[in-house]
C-alpha cells in the first residue's frame, strides 16, 4: 500500500519529512505513528495507513509535494532490506546464493504493483530482476519488441543504485570536507564539488564559506534599495487616481525590480521578516520574554545575534571570518519559503499613514490590543476586498471563502505565523481572547497543526520595536501581508489646523500576479478607514 504526503490543510502544498519514527523494513501497525512531517513550521505526526512492513521512499529533510508517495507498507519484508541486512552481516555469514523463486511468484509481485500487464522480458532478465528486487515495468527494454534484457536490468540497477546513493544524503563528499561542514553547520547540498566526479572537497567547503560571506554587503544594499519607502511612497498618492490606461505603468515598476529579486534567493540567510507582540496593554509578557527582542530586529539580525553565541576555535586556513549556524528546522523552512516568495511573487509594497488616535482610545477602554484591533479591521476590510484574501495556485486565483488572519509571532530566533480562523465572524472580544491564547501557545511551543494552517492573510507588527516602516515579505501562498509600524504622536493637519495625533504607517505588500495596485490601494484605504473610525469594528460585533 502506497503512503503519500498527507494534506493537512487547505493551503498545504508540500511537507518536509522531519523524522521517520520507524526503521526501513520494520513492521508497523495501522494507526501507529510512523513519521513526523513539518508544514507551516509545525510538526505533525503521521500514522501508518495500514499494517505491514515499512518501505521508506523519501528521506529526512526531503520536501515532498502533497499526494506524492513517501513510503509504502508492504506485506512482506522489502527485498532491498533483506539484501542490506545480508550485506551488513557479510563479515561473519558466508554469502548465500539467492533462492530461486518460481516465476509465478514474481507474477504476484507484478500484480501487486500498479500495472497488471506482463512486461516482455527475457528469462535471464526476469531472474536478474528478481535477484535485485527490480520491477520489470520500471526498466526500459531495448530487446526485440521492447523486451527487457538482462543488460537493461543490470544497467537499471546500476543507475538506480547511483541515484539512490545520490539522494540518500551526501554522496560525493570527502570525509574531511564532511567533517568540516558538519562542524561549521554547512548544508553540503548547497556546495558544488570540484573533486573527482564532482566530489566536494575541503577547498570547496572553504570556498563556499568565503563566497557566502562575501556577497553579504552588496546583497544588503540590493535588498534595501527597492524597499526605500520613498520609491513606493512617491507613487502611492497617484495610484488611486490612476485609471485604466495608466495601469500598465505599475507592471513596469515590477519589471525593473524583478531582476533584482532572484539574487536574494541563493543566499542562505534571509531577512528575518517580522514579528508581532502584544504591545503596551500587557507589558509583563514582553519583559518576560527577552528572546523575542532579538528575534524581532529587522534585516540582518542573525549575525549580530549569533556572534556572541557562537565561539569557535581559531579559524583555519582560508576559512572566512564570521561564524555560522546550521540552516535547519524552522530557520531552513523560513529561508526556503521567504526566498520562494520573493522569487515567485512580484512584490509591491504600498505605504499609508493612519491616524490611530481613536483606535488608541478604543484599546484603552476595551482593554484590547492594537493587534486585536488590526486583526478585526483587516478581516472586515477583506470581506469587501476578496481579491486580497485569495491564493494563487496553478494559474488560478482562488478567492478563499473564509478569512483567516495569520499573526507573525517571534519565538526566540524563530518566526511563526499562528492563525485566527474566521476572524471576520469573531467579535473584537473573541479576537482578543483568541490572539492572547494563540500568542501564548506560540511562545510555549504548544501550537497544534491546525493553529498554523490555512491562513489567508498575514499581519506583521514591528511597532513595539520602534520600526516606522518596513516591507514585509508575503507568506506564500497568500496574496498579501500587512506591515504595521510604530504608533507615534505626530503633528498632522486636521481641518486646516495642526494637531498632534497618534500616527502609524501601514505597509501592504501584495502579490502583483493576483492583485493590481488600485484594488490593493483601495483595500488599504478601507483598513485605514476602519482604524480611524474603530466604532465600526464594534458595530459589526453583535450580529
Amino acid at each position, binding site marked *: 500500500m502506497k503512503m503519500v504526503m498527507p494534506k493537512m490543510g487547505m493551503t498545504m502544498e508540500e511537507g518536509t519529512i522531519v523524522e521517520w519514527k520507524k526503521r526501513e523494513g520494520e513492521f508497523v501497525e495501522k494507526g501507529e505513528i510512523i513519521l513526523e512531517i513539518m508544514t507551516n513550521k509545525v510538526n505533525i505526526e503521521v500514522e501508518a495507513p495500514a499494517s505491514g512492513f515499512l518501505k521508506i521512499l523519501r528521506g529526512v529533510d526531503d520536501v515532498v509535494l502533497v499526494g506524492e508517495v513517501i513510503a509504502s507498507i508492504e506485506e512482506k519484508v522489502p527485498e532491498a532490506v533483506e539484501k542490506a541486512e545480508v550485506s551488513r552481516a557479510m563479515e561473519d555469514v558466508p554469502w548465500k546464493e539467492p533462492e530461486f523463486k518460481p516465476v509465478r511468484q514474481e507474477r504476484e509481485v507484478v500484480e501487486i504493483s500498479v500495472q497488471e500487464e506482463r512486461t516482455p522480458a527475457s528469462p535471464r532478465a526476469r531472474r536478474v530482476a528478481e535477484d535485485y528486487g527490480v520491477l520489470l515495468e520500471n526498466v526500459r527494454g531495448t530487446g526485440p519488441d521492447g523486451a527487457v534484457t538482462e543488460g537493461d536490468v543490470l544497467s537499471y540497477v546500476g543507475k538506480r543504485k547511483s541515484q539512490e546513493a545520490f539522494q540518500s544524503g551526501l554522496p560525493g563528499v*570527502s*570525509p*574531511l*570536507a564532511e*567533517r*568540516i561542514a558538519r*562542524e561549521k553547520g554547512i548544508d553540503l547540498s548547497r556546495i558544488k564539488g*570540484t*573533486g573527482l566526479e564532482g566530489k566536494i*572537497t*575541503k577547498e570547496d567547503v572553504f570556498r563556499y564559506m568565503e563566497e557566502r560571506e562575501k556577497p553579504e554587503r552588496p546583497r544588503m544594499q540590493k535588498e534595501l534599495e527597492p524597499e526605500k519607502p520613498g520609491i513606493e511612497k512617491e507613487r502611492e498618492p497617484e495610484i488611486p487616481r490612476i485609471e485604466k490606461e495608466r495601469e500598465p505603468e505599475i507592471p513596469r515598476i515590477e519589471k525593473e525590480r524583478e531582476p533584482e529579486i532572484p539574487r536574494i534567493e541563493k543566499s542562505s540567510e534571509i531577512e528575518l521578516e517580522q514579528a508581532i507582540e502584544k504591545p503596551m496593554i500587557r507589558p509583563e509578557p514582553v519583559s518576560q520574554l527577552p528572546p523575542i527582542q532579538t528575534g524581532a530586529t529587522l534585516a540582518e539580525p542573525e549575525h549580530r545575534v549569533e556572534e556572541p553565541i557562537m565561539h569557535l*576555535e*581559531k579559524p*583555519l*586556513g582560508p576559512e572566512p571570518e564570521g561564524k555560522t549556524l546550521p540552516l535547519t528546522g524552522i530557520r531552513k523552512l523560513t529561508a526556503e519559503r521567504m526566498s520562494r516568495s520573493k522569487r515567485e511573487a512580484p512584490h509591491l509594497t504600498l505605504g499609508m499613514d493612519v491616524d490611530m488616535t481613536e483606535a488608541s482610545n478604543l484599546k484603552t477602554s476595551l482593554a484590547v490590543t492594537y493587534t486585536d484591533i488590526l486583526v478585526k479591521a483587516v478581516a472586515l476590510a477583506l470581506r469587501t476586498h476578496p481579491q486580497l484574501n485569495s491564493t494563487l495556485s496553478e494559474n488560478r486565483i482562488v478567492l478563499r471563502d473564509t478569512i483567516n488572519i495569520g499573526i507573525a509571532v517571534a519565538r526566540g530566533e524563530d518566526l511563526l505565523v499562528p492563525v485566527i480562523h474566521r476572524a471576520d465572524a469573531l467579535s473584537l472580544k473573541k479576537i482578543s481572547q483568541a490572539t492572547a491564547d494563540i500568542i501564548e501557545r506560540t511562545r510555549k511551543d504548544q501550537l497544534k497543526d491546525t493553529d498554523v494552517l490555512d491562513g489567508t492573510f498575514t499581519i506583521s507588527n514591528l511597532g513595539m520595536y520602534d520600526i516606522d516602516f518596513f516591507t514585509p515579505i508575503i507568506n506564500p501562498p497568500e496574496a498579501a501581508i500587512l506591515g504595521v509600524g510604530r504608533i507615534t504622536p505626530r503633528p498632522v493637519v486636521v481641518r486646516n489646523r495642526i494637531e498632534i495625533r497618534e500616527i502609524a504607517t501601514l505597509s501592504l505588500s501584495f502579490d502583483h500576479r493576483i492583485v493590481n495596485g488600485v484594488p490593493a490601494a483601495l483595500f488599504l484605504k478601507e483598513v485605514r478607514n476602519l482604524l480611524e473610525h474603530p466604532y465600526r469594528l464594534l458595530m459589526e460585533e453583535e450580529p
Partner: protein
Amino acid sequence: MITILGGGPGGYTAAIRAVQLGAEVTLLEKEEVGGTCLNWGCVPSKVFLKGSKMYSQLKFAESYGVFAKPSPFDMRRLGERKNEVKQALVMGLKNVLRSYGVNIVHGEGRMIDEHTVVGPGGNIACDKIILATGCQPEVPHLFQELSVTYKDVFQLQYLPRSVLVVNGGVFAVEMAWFFLELGSQVTMVAENVLERDFEDIETRIASYLQNRGVKFVQGRIASIKKQGEQKLVEIGEEEIIAEELIWMNRKRVLEGIPRKLVQHESVAVNEHMQTAFPAVYAVGDITGSYTAGDAMAQGVVAAEHAMGNTTAYNPRTVPKVLYAPEAAVIGLTEREASEEYDVVKGNFPYGASGRAQTVGAIRGRVTILADKKYGEILGAHIVGKGASELIQLIGFAMRLEATIDELSSLLCAHPTMVEMIRDAGLDIHGNAFNLPRK
C-alpha cells in the same frame, strides 16, 4: 593541436593525456624519449641500487644461513643490465606514444611565439604549447675535464675505490649510497644533504650515511688536480682525494623559451601550469620541481587544462621518495604544518612491526601529521624499508581527503608493513595496537 617540447616524464605524460582528451599532439625530443628519468636518472640509478643492494646483502646473509663470498663487483655487467632495463622501458614508452598517435619529432624545438614552435622540419603552428624541457648536467667549465656528471656515472667501466659526490639531494644521496654499498670511500660536498621537502628526516638520513662512513664536507671547490690515478680536490681548508668526482648539479634547460617566461632561472606557472602566456604551459624541472612524480602530475594538469578542464596542481599530495637509504615524504613538513595548523603527530617505529622484524628491517619510523581539529592528514614521513611504496597509501588517503581516523581504520593482512601506517595513525590517540599503552 598541442606541441610539447621535451619527451621526459612531464612531456610524455602530457602528450598521452592530451590525446586521450582528443588533441592532436606533436612531441619534440632532441635525445631519447623518457628524458632524464628513464635514461640518466631514476631508472638507471634504481638498477644500480639493485646491484649494490644484492652485493651488500651477502654480508648479512650469514645470519639467515646463507654463506657466500662476494666476488669483485663488475660494473660493466651492471651497466649492461641497466641498458637492458632502459631499452625495454624506452621501447615500451615509444610503443605507447605511437599507439596514441603522438607525432614524435626527433630534434630540438624553439618556441618563437605563443602559437609557434620552430622544429627541425620548420615552423609548427599550434593552439597550445607545453614546455617540458627538463634539465642538463652542470659542471663549471674549469672542472669539466676531471669530473663526471650524473649522466656519465652510469657509463663507468670500473668501480672507483673512492668518490667525491658534489652537491646534495635525493639523487646525490642515492649515488653516494650505491658506492657505499659496494665498499667505496664516499665524501659528499653539500650545503644540504637533501631537498627541503625532506627536512624532517634529513638528519636521520645524514646519520645513516655517516654511520656507513660517508664524510661530509662543506664549502666551495677551489681546485681539482690530477694526482696519478686520483684527483686531489681542494675545498676550503680541506684536501680530499678521490678517484672520481661526480657532479650531481643540474641546470634547467631554458634555451628556446622566451625570456619573458623565465624568472629566477625557472619558468613561472600558476596552479594550472600556465605561464605568463595563457596558451603556453610549463611542467617538470623547469618549473622548479625536481622529481619525475611532480613532472607527471603537472603534465596531466597541463594537458587537461589545455583541453579546457579546470584541473589544478596540488603539490601537497605528490609523494617524494629517496630510494636508498629508503625514505619518503608527503605533504607538509612539521614546520610548515605547525605554521598553519594545530598539529598532532603519530609515530610508529619499525622495530615494533612484526613484518619489519621478519625481514630484518628494524631501523626506521613512520610519522604521520594530522590536524587536531578536523583530523585532516597534513603530511607524513617514513624512513625505512618499503617507505617508497608505503607513502603512496597516505598520499591516496590525502587525495581522497580521508581523515586520520579513516586512515587508521585500515584493515591489514598480518604481518605486513602497511600495519605500521595504521598504527602510526592510531598512535595519535595513543591507541596503536603494537605499541605499549601510553
